[in-house]
Structures are given as C-alpha cells and as structure tokens.
C-alpha cells in the first residue's frame, strides 16, 4: 500500500542498459513539503532515477509512486503526471515564442483556465525576475534565463511534487539565491522538491534530507547533520568524498 504522507516513493527501482545496471533496487521516500537533495558522481544514476520518477524512462523492475499515484500503472499514471513538475538538466524551448507565450502554451496544454493561467504566469514572471524580457523571443534568452523559464513552466500548474535535475546549474549568484529562497518557500507551502545537484553547499543549506547514490544504489541517506556525524566530517563535501571513497575501496 502507498503511504499517503509520502510525496515520492520508490520500491526496488531498477534500470539496466545492456550490461550496465544504472539503477539497482533503489528504495526512496520523500515526505510532503520536504526538499530532498539527490547527490552522486557523474554516471551514478541520478538522471536515470529522475527520468523513471517522472515517467520518461520505464523501469526494468520496481515501482514509483508520485503523490500517492503509481507512475507506471496504466490507470494512475495520468494522475501522477498531473501532480508533478519537472525541469531536465538540458532545456529546450520554442525559440520563436516569447517567454509569456511559452508559459501560456504550457498552461493551455494542461487545461488550466485562462484567467487562472494569466494570473499564475504574471506571478511566476515576477518571482523569477523575467518580467522585463517576457515579451522577447525565447531564442534571445541567455542560458540562465532559459533555465528560469523552464522552471516557471514546471511551476505553472502548481504541482505538488517538483523534480529538478541540476536546477542551479548555469545561474548567476543572485538568480541562484532567489531560486533557493523560492524552493524553501514552496516547500513551506507543502510542495515536495526532489533535486539533484553537484553543489554540495547548496544541498547542505536548503535540503531537509540528502541521499547519496553510488553505482545505482543508495549509499546513505539522512539530514546533513546526520551524515556529517556518520562520516565524522565537517561538511557535506567531506561526507560525500569520504563515503564514496569508502564504497569504492569496498568494491575493489
């Protein structure tokens, strides 16, 4: 049975690519209103896991529940998709549409009533500091602005669960700070955020809990303080390096 206090849950989630097992029997649980940081080295299985969570990659085994709905069941997957917003690590927009038109298109795609969509778009453009360029074509946006617009697109339908692949990648310090504040605000409003990042200081500062994945398996999980204690380290960076090195040694 799915625990309804959990926003995301996976059970024995597995994905193989020919001889390589990218994700190997992963069990995850993210609570409602929680910011969960998903850390791992390159190729550890972060993006593969996220794609399985959002319904872009079918698992070879295991199950995923989003907002209480099973993502890979024919009857519940649409409800699961309706509850989530996703920003991929590489974004692609419609170059000839303006930022506002792009968001209006996404709102229409999800059937949000027009007046409600217009209000929401106005709010998001203001929060993400995109107002001034809202009438410019997306093709003329900088990389950081495109990332912010993609995030606005993921938020336009006010999802209960937000899954973000390296959301702060390529952003200037001011924008990054603004987004971190936004994540904290969204989480305090009940939105669950599952984000991957290589910025360990960010993970330490905003995530309620952190999970480290190594070779497709969850190596360790807990709050930043718990992990520091576990690895007898002073910060999350040392925790990450210590724990992943230990696991490598054990494997060898």
């Amino acid at each position, binding site marked *: 049975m799915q625990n309804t206090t959990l926003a995301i849950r996976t059970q024995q989630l597995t994905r193989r690519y020919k001889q390589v097992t990218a994700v190997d029997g992963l069990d995850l649980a993210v609570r409602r209103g929680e910011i969960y940081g998903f850390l791992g080295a390159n190729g550890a299985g972060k993006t593969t896991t996220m794609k399985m969570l*959002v*319904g*872009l*990659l*079918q698992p070879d085994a295991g199950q995923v529940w989003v907002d209480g709905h099973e993502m890979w069941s024919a009857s519940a997957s*649409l*409800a699961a*998709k*309706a509850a*989530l917003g*996703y920003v*991929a690590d*590489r*974004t*692609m*927009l*419609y*170059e*000839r*549409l*303006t930022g506002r*038109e792009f968001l*209006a*298109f*996404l709102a*229409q*795609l*999800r*059937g*949000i*009533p*027009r007046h409600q969509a217009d209000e929401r778009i106005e709010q998001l453009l203001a929060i993400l500091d995109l107002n001034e360029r809202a*009438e*410019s*074509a997306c*093709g*003329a946006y900088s990389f950081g602005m495109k990332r912010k617009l993609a995030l606005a*697109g993921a938020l336009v339908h006010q999802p209960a669960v937000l899954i973000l692949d390296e959301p702060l990648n390529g952003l200037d310090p001011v924008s990054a700070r603004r987004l971190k504040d936004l994540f904290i605000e969204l989480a305090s409003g009940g939105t669950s955020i599952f984000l991957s990042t290589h910025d360990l200081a960010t993970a330490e500062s905003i995530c309620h809990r952190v999970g480290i994945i190594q070779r497709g398996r969850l190596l360790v999980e807990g709050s930043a303080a718990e992990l520091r204690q576990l690895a007898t380290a002073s910060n999350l960076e040392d925790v990450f390096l210590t724990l992943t090195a230990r696991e490598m040694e054990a494997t060898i």
Partner: protein
Amino acid sequence: MSSVLTLWRAQFVSTHGALREDSRARMTWAIGLVVDIAAGFWTFNELSGNLAQWYAAGQLALATHLWLLCLWAWAGISFFAVIAVVSQGFGNDQAVMLMSLPLSPSARLRALYGLVMFTGVGNWIVLANIVTVVALGTKLGWQALLWLLLLDLGVAATVCISMIATLLVIRFVLQHLKRAFTGLAIASASVVTVFLLLHASKYTLHVTFPVQLMLILTSMFCALLLLLILGPLATATGTLYQNAFYTMEGRSARRTALMLPGMRLFSVWLSRYRTLTGALLYKGLLNQSRSVFTWGRAAILALCVALFPLFQKVMIAYGFSPLAQVTVYASIVAILAVVEYAAYAISSEGARMSYYLLAPFNMAAFLRARLVSFLLPVLSIGLAVCLVLSWWQRLSLYEAGLAALLMALLLIGYTLFIVWGSAFDLDINQVAEGAMQTLMLEELPVTPRRLQLLGLSILLLAGMVLLIMKLPVLLAIFVLVLLDGVVCIGLGRFGLVHLKKLV
C-alpha cells in the same frame, strides 16, 4: 592530410557503429535502400525506354538528351549537397567541436567535402552509377564509360561548387537578407526578360562539336576545377568556411517577437480552447507566423495557382480529366504548403517532447491532436485552391464537390502518413541550441530518416494520384477511403509504438 583522413575515418566508424548498435539506424538504412532501389528501378525503366528512341533519332539527339540527363542528376545532387553542407558544417555539435580543433583551413574544407560526399550524397552517387552503367552500357558499349566519367566528375565538381555557393550565401547574403531579396528579384526579372526576348526573336544557337571531344573536355574541366578547389584554393575556401561559421555563430537572436496584424486576435481566440489541440494550434500559429519559411510558402502557393495553366497542359498530355486535374493540383499545392515541415511534425520536438510526455494525457491523444493541427491548415488551403481551380475549369457544383471530396481523402491519407510517420525520427534527448540548430531540427530534412519518410510519402502520393487518374470517380473514392483507413490504423500503431519506445 592525415588529420583529414582521421576525420573521415571517424565518420565512417561512427556510421558503422550506429548500424551495428542502433536498430533505428538499421531500419533507416533498410528504408533508404528500398527507396533507392525503387527510384533506381523507375529511372532505369524510363532511361532504357527513352534511350532506344534517342538512339534511333541520331547521335545529336542522343547526346543532347544525355547531357540533359547529366544536368538533372547534378541538379539533384546539388540539392542534397547544400543540405549536407548546412547540416554537417554548421548545424550540429560535431561541427562546433571540429571548429575548436587546431586544423588548417584547407584541412577543414577537405574534411567537410568528404563528409558531404559520404553522408550527404553517397547513396545517390552509387545509384546514379549503377543505373547509368547498366542502362547505357547495354546500348552504347564502351562509349558509356565516357558518359559515366562525365557524370562522376561532374558530381564531384557539383558538390564542390554547391559547397562554395552555400558558404558564400551564409557568409555574405544571410546578413543582408533584404538587399539579397531585392538583388534576387532584379536578377530573376532580368533572366526572364532575356528569355522572353530570345523566345520572341526565335533565336537559336547551333553549336557543332564532336561529342566525344566535348565529353572529354568537360570531364577534364570538372577534374581541373576539383583539383584547384581542393588543392591550391583549399586554404582560401577553407577560410571562407571558417568565416561563414563565425558569421553563423555570431548572429544575434532577434530580441523582439514579431506579431503580424490579426495574429494576436487569432491567437487569443485559439487560446480559448483549453485542450491539447487548442494548445498545439496556438503554439503552431505563433511559431509559423514568425518563420521566414512561412512567407516563402505563401509566395510559392500564389505562384503555383498562377502557374496552373502551364501544368494543366502537362496533365492533359498524361490523360487527366478536368476533375482529376483540379483534385490532383489542389492536393499538391496544399501539400507543398506543409511538406517541408510536416515530415518532422513530431520529430522536430526533440527534447521538448517531454512537455507532452509529462502532461496528463495519453500518447494516442497526442497523435490525434498533432494530426488535427496539421490537417486543418492543409485541408483549408486545399479547399480554397480547389474552389478557385473548379471555377477556373468551370466544373459543375457536383463535380466540384467530388473534386473536393477526392482531394480531402488524398490529403488525409498523405497527412496521416507523414505526420504520424515522423514519430520514427523522434529523439527526446536531442537539444537544439541557437538559431541554426533549431532551424535544422524544425525545418529541414537533414536526417536520413526524414529524407526516407519524404521519399516514401512521395511514393504514397504518386500511388494515390494514379488511383484518381485511372479509376472511375466513385470507385476512386471507395479505394481512397480504404487506403486512408489502412494508413490510419497502420501508421497510428506505428506512431504509438515509437512513442512508447521512448520511455
């Protein structure tokens, strides 16, 4: 030269690896082979039939027609070469990566030439050679070798010239589009005026030259041109390529989004429909109204309608009835309006496909909505042209209705095929960055799969035209309904299977 060979080898190994590892690449290769064999078989039949007539008409007639044949082949190769230059030289990450390597301009040019020959026109060169050798060899004996030499050296030179012309256009013309259009209009008007004057004066040019000598001289000229461009002139031409690349990379994206009169009202009206189809129409309207290609299409449509009397003569010669003329011509004009982007109706989404995969609707709904968003403009244009041509042909109301029905059935079948078939080339990991990559993804038949789909769709169109031409009207309607049903079920399943494979 070793760096050039290394790059060519890398491309060959990459293609070989793709064929070994990727089932979609193998499928593409198989479809390409089928299209090539079909095209080769048809060309061989046409050529063999005509060759006997030309041969009987004398040496001069034979030489004239074979020259024309070579010119047609070179023109076709030139088209594919231009596409290959744009896609291999500018529109992908590989081009960007190669530009960052410490290669001399001449090496860059030679590498690009090899890539264009190998990936862009290689299969057409093989096809042209096989057809020419078999068809001409049986009739002309050893003389066929001279024509083959001319064809091959001409192809090699044509690719070179097309490559340089493309680079020149990108380097010097794209930045000054308005002036370029004016220049092109003046040049076209001058050519038409000269042609009309010559036609009115009944001037003819008679040149007598030994055929074999002419063949040898032209072949030598092509070889010399090729050696010059890839040899002593390679540095200058390679520098042109580098500068053209920098021009493309340095183009600043338009900051303001163009909103044409009436479009805002239309887009607001479309935004009232809070459905997937409404969203696609809203996005499509804004996107297309801001594409320079849309205005080119509009001009081509107007030109096509104006040129109806000219094509009518050809259709009459082939035995088309007035009703069939209206049906087929209106259908082809409507298809011309969408053909160069309908073939990527789904695949042009690339990574943006995740917006649809993550939205709460199933993929069958997506396929239906995508089809409707293409069918509406195609049928609207087709119907408008059909009405104009019916009036032009003075068809009765009943005949005009039949023409419209036949046209609708033809367009539905064709659009179903090309729109749903385009799911085959979809790659949700494909990200386009910058204007050129986006253009390549959204507007050009740059991948082998897109070209194969276009080829197959033309075969389907030809089949449907044959049905309209040869069968009585009511029987043609019945058969087209059946064919549309088969295409709908077959391509619907095909599209769904491919979309489901993505996850």
